Each structure stands twice: as structure tokens, then as C-alpha cells.
């Protein structure tokens, strides 16, 4: 294994473009190192991006949107009052990843690029309408989060492409987001199901909504039908049931050591309802 510490993203991109074999970028390392130690994946080339300037920065743009550097760890997000108040659902989702120790390392970009269908922050980012800044040899572009996951453990990023930051849109008035996941214990588990919801109100009716689900399909997905089920409605019992129904319909899970098909499908509905209530309350306050 070769270990590199490039000083710019273009250098990182060049390194990965020209490298042979298995290439991994190292940010927080909480997935890369686990896979290395467990002999699941031993990269031939490991590119540590943490020496690149500004990778640890959280920046608020003049329009109120946010840019989160690729190496910002969970604890740093959780300590950031501004982003927490704009996007509480996203920050809570990040905070759910692993322990205090993992929070000292794990990053949004890593969680996204690991390609796990059960990644906690990804449904929240998708619901929030976030984008990733992707850098390759021809420059940089913004890609919506829902375009990044490809299949379990794989992303749509090509060789020589590296994510430098995550961008969250400006917080709209009368809107709120939430993320919930189900795990058997209180902490430390991988989501059996995850659900992110972001909604905007006009009066007490929902005018805009984005609903996403994790761990119930091969990648995290945005569920348009679930959003439609609540748009134009108040969040009454009937609407919640319709939301749950739409969420369950979108499920195509597997049975494994973390949950059965029936259980995951059932829980998707339960979490969609609970997350919607939290997001709704946040939008009202």
C-alpha cells in the first residue's frame, strides 16, 4: 500500500487518475481502516486528503448556503451552532454515526463515498437537497447527493474524481428537517432503516417536501411518492398513514443480520411518520 498526502484536490485527483490497482481516499478513515484491518479491502494507493488547505472548514456563503469541507468530522459539525440551527436533521444524522470516538474522525464525504445503503447522513443530505463538489482533471462541478450512490459499496464517481466538499442550501423560512433511524441498541449500530425528511410549510399545510430512505433499497433513495403524499396537506393521521404507505411501497430490502424484509418495510413507515412529525414541528417553530 502506498500512502500519499497531496496538498490540493487537483493533485489528489491527478494521483488517483494515474494510480493503478485499488485506490481509496482517506478522510476520517472510519470505513477505510475497518476494511483494511478486516482484510476486506487493502488499497494499493491511499490518498490522505487531510493535508489539503480548507478541508476542515465550515463556511456560510452570502446567500445563506453552507459549504462543509471534506475532512470536517462529525464532532465539528455537532459543535457548530449555525449549521445545527439551519439543518438540525443533517447534524443529528451525522451525530448518530458511531461513538464519540468515531465522531472525532468520521466525515460527511466519507459516509457518502463509502456507498453504504445504510449510511446515516446520506438520507438527511438527500432530503435537504444537498450537493457534493466533485473535482476531476477538468475542474469542479456540483452533483446532487442522490446522483452519487450507485450500488452497495459503489458510487457513480469515476477514476480521478474526488469530492472536496458538501454543500447545503440556505435554510428557508418555515421549513424543517429531521432524520431518524432504527437500531436494536441505543447507539453503535448500523441503521436497520433510516429516514430523512425535509419540508416547508405555507400556513399549516406542507408546500414542499423531500423524503428519503436508507437501508431499504440497494442505495439510499429519494421517495417522490412519499413527498407527494404529504405535499398540500396538514400533517394529520390520514396524511401520516399515506406517507407511511408510500414509504413502505418504496422498500425493496433484503433480510440479513440486521433485519428482515418484513421488519424493514414495516419500520420504514413507522420512521417516516415519526420523522415527519419532528420536521413539521421544526418548520412551525
Amino acid at each position: 500500500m502506498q500512502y500519499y498526502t497531496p496538498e490540493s484536490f487537483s493533485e489528489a485527483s491527478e494521483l488517483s487518475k494515474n494510480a493503478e490497482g485499488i485506490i481509496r481516499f482517506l478522510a476520517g478513515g472510519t470505513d477505510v481502516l475497518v476494511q483494511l484491518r478486516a482484510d476486506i479491502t487493502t488499497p494499493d494507493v491511499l490518498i490522505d486528503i487531510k493535508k489539503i488547505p480548507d478541508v476542515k472548514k465550515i463556511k456560510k456563503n452570502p446567500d445563506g448556503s453552507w459549504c462543509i469541507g471534506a475532512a470536517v468530522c462529525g464532532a465539528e459539525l455537532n459543535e457548530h451552532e449555525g449549521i445545527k440551527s439551519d439543518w438540525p436533521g443533517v447534524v443529528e444524522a451525522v451525530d448518530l454515526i458511531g461513538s464519540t470516538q468515531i465522531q472525532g474522525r468520521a466525515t460527511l464525504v466519507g459516509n457518502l463515498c463509502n456507498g453504504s445503503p445504510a449510511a446515516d447522513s446520506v438520507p438527511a443530505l438527500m432530503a435537504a437537497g444537498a450537493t457534493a463538489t466533485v473535482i476531476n482533471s477538468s475542474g469542479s462541478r456540483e452533483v446532487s447527493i442522490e446522483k452519487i450512490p450507485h450500488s452497495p459499496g459503489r458510487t457513480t464517481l469515476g477514476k480521478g474524481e474526488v469530492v472536496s466538499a458538501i454543500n447545503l442550501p440556505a435554510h428557508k423560512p418555515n421549513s424543517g428537517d429531521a432524520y431518524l433511524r432504527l437500531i436494536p441498541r441505543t447507539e453503535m449500530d448500523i441503521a436497520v432503516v433510516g429516514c430523512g425528511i425535509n419540508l416547508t410549510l405555507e400556513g399549516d399545510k406542507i408546500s414542499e417536501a423531500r423524503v428519503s430512505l436508507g437501508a431499504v433499497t440497494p442505495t439510499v433513495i429519494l421517495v417522490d411518492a412519499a413527498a407527494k403524499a404529504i405535499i398540500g396537506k396538514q400533517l394529520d393521521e390520514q396524511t401520516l398513514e399515506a406517507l407511511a404507505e408510500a414509504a413502505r411501497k418504496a422498500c425493496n430490502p433484503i433480510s440479513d443480520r440486521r433485519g428482515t424484509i418484513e421488519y424493514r418495510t414495516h419500520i420504514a413507515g413507522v420512521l417516516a411518520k415519526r420523522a415527519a412529525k419532528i420536521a413539521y414541528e421544526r418548520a412551525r417553530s
Partner: protein
Amino acid sequence: MSNIHVNTIVNGDEVGFLCDPRETLLDCLRDKLSLTGAKEGCGTGDCGSCSVKLDGRLVCSCLVLGAEAEGKKIETIEGMSRDEKLHPLQEKFIEHAALQCGICTPGILVATKALLEKNPNPSETEVRYWLAGNLCRCTGYDKIIRAVLDTAADLREAK
């Protein structure tokens, strides 16, 4: 690839070592610097017994590469008491019988020290969630939580 030369500061001392790029910080602390207080219980960041502070952040040293330590400041259990006197947490853990086998103890002490530095007045629930990544199989956590809360109260009073 050949070994990487790493210079770092551990518990205030400048140290250097050579490591394979695949070796973790935990491997390096234990095998190259003879600091065996951090333990490998899982190697996957699930048990917390290798907890150390890296530039002020609590991390699992099994999920950090040795090479990443270049130019960093690392604090381990060996640096918790710098002179004859134990850290109040160490004293209280002994007094409360908050350890049985003791394998998780260094990690839990490093983690709880980090907690009290950040939050001098944690609730029982806050202590429990802060320590969710530090597995203990012997105690049922009861006496550990009591020792931490008791230390926190003493430290607040001393201020």
C-alpha cells in the same frame, strides 16, 4: 513501499518511529513506542479500548494510521497522571471499584477525561451516551457511571 518515518508528540514528548503505511496508530503506540496502555479489543472502532486524544479530539487509535500521526499531538492513558498524583478520575475509579478485569479501563478513563473537559457537569444520560463506544463486559457500567459523576461533582466543587 518502504516504511514511513513519523515524528509526533506523545504525552508531551517528541518521538519518532518507522511504520508500514498499513500499521495503525494503535500498532505504533504499542509495538514501536511501548505504550501498551491502549488496547486492541476489536480493531474496528467498536469497543473504544484503544481510545486516545489526537490533536485534542477523542478517537479510536485503531482507526488512525500511524502515518497520520505526523506532526500531531497524541495523549494516551500513560500521560493521564504526570507526577506522583493520580488524576481524580483514576482515584475515583479505584475507590468506586469501577473496574473488574480492567481491560477497558484505560480507554474509558481517556474518554471520560475528554468528557469532563468538555462538559464539567454531565447528566447520567450524557455520561452513558458519551461512553456508548467504550464497551465494558464486566461491570454493567453501574460503578463506572457513578465514579464519573462523583469525580465531576468533586472537580466542580474544587473550582
